[in-house]
């Protein structure tokens, strides 16, 4: 007579619980692997910066002036005028740059606007709509700035604006080493994922080990970086100072800023 009962090992439920835990853990690892991979690709992509000949410091100042004036204004007409000016500037970019600008703008806008949406439900519709409109212009201005500047240009701009040397040097080093650390983290996460096959691992311990190891490795990189700095003739007190010279291409930017300031005085306040 055949035995209809299932074998004992199939009746055990802890196998399923074990599998669930493994799946959960590997999902988190996979999510982070995707984020890190995306980030590494982002850094490897060559920035789409056109041959913009304007001075870095002036572009930085110009962006700040427009931001401050837009924030100080309560006039639809002024903000609309600034919108048109930014759109005119955007027209000078290539199609690929415009696409990227649009993509960045949407991402940044959605992240920023989400907090203010409930205010419409509360009832302050007109004020919230004006807020959203102004927010969109502010973000468009920042997105345009990010599109026409590489991080090297931003660093040059900060140097020209006499930002402390220590900050600039640290910024430069960290921008270069983010990529290295991200690759190291990716390798570690792959190793963890491979070790996870069939057995659950404690999430907190994994995170502790991965980031602890990342920190210890970054300490090792420090000596390498320092040796490289010494080889390139590094001295703590930098003799080289960037000057804030005006180029021919800068006059168009100055003219644009003047127009924005005049518009603010006439219709913006």
């Amino acid at each position, binding site marked *: 007579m055949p035995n209809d009962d299932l074998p004992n090992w199939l009746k055990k439920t802890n196998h399923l619980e074990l599998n669930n835990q493994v799946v*959960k853990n590997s999902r*988190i690892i996979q*999510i*982070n692997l995707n*984020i*890190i991979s995306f*980030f590494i690709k982002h850094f490897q992509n060559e920035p789409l910066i056109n041959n913009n000949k304007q001075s870095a410091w002036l572009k930085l100042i110009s962006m700040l002036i427009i*931001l*401050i004036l837009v*924030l*100080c204004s*309560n006039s639809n007409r002024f903000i609309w005028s600034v919108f048109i000016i930014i759109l005119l500037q955007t027209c000078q970019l290539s199609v690929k740059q415009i696409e990227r600008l649009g993509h960045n703008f949407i*991402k*940044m806008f959605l*992240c*920023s606007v989400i907090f*203010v949406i409930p*205010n419409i439900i509360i009832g*302050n519709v007109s*004020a*919230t709509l004006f*807020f959203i409109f*102004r*927010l969109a212009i*502010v973000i468009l201005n*920042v*997105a345009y700035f*990010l599109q026409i500047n590489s991080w090297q240009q*931003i660093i040059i701009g900060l140097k020209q604006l006499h930002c402390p040397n*220590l*900050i600039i*040097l*640290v*910024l*430069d*080093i*960290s*921008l270069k*080493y*983010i990529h290295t*650390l*991200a690759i190291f*983290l990716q390798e570690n996460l792959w190793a963890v994922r491979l070790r996870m096959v069939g057995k659950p691992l404690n*999430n*907190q*311990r994994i*995170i*502790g080990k991965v*980031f*602890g190891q*990342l*920190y*210890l490795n*970054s*300490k090792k*990189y*420090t000596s390498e*970086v320092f040796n490289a*700095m010494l080889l390139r003739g590094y001295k*703590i007190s930098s003799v080289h100072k960037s000057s804030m010279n005006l180029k021919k291409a800068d006059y168009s930017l100055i003219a644009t800023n003047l127009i924005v300031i005049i518009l603010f005085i006439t219709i913006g306040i």
Partner: protein
Amino acid sequence: MHIPDNYLSPQTCIAMFTAATPVIALSIKKVELQIKEKKETIPMIGISASLAFIIMLFNVPVPGGTSAHAVGATLLALLIGPYAACIALTIVLLMQAFLFGDGGILALGANIFNMAIIMPFVGYFCFKIFDKFKYKKTGAFVGAFIGINVAALLAGIELGIQPIIAHTAHNQPMYSPYGLMITIPAMLFAHLVVAGWIEAGFTLAVYRFILKVAPGELYQNVKKTSQKSYNVGNFFKKLLIAMIILCPLGLLTKSTAFGEWDAQELKNMLPNHLVPSGISHGFSFNAIFSDYAVSGLSDVSGYMLSAITAVIILYLVSKIMRKHYHAK
């Protein structure tokens, strides 16, 4: 917690920049001292900033199926020290604002103040308290939890005061539209319930690992090996200068201190206006700076001059006594 542009009024942005600048300047000075002793500190801060950036990319599982990321401010303060952590986090916020549009550019001062100053310093301070009682791990956990929540509270206050300080003639808010009654509970709830635990758990996990594997790499332990003896003399010098500057504050109270009344004042105060004979006919001495006043000078100048005179006399006495003591 990154506050975007347009949520804070320009006045708030300027105020927050003003508040953050001296702390950043102090941190730069402190780190420059570290650099003089150990030149590798510069690349270390740079790489730590990269590490902080990567930490913010990493998603940690949250009960309920979702995930969120830690900031790692307290962790960084434990690893490289609060001043270096302050600079590293400032760099991260600069990068996020200028390269990725994450967090506002004008709101950078507020974001730096909340995340690069308050979080690492509060976290480190809490850690130090627990460390005194040898509870290092608890200190790391509690420090991270409190640090992020204090920063969230400040962000809530900064956002919540906007309708009060910046509104139109029709009382419509020009910037963040929510008042303190909404922003503070919203920010605190999110951080007390979710983000705080992630930050604390993450900090504890990494701190525990490094404490076990390479305890010598922790800031506290590195500091212990190269720590110079604390200069008590300098501290007292600074304290004395501060006291001299602040001593005219005593003039704010017009009434005489308890028990220091003269015979006339006592007579006015007593119900039967009878002053004990011991006081009315007692010994009276007219000092050079009676009541700390110098003839021909204002009360404030008189007060300060009295303080300076007393300090110089005490300094001379202590110098003579010190010499006498060392001679013995």
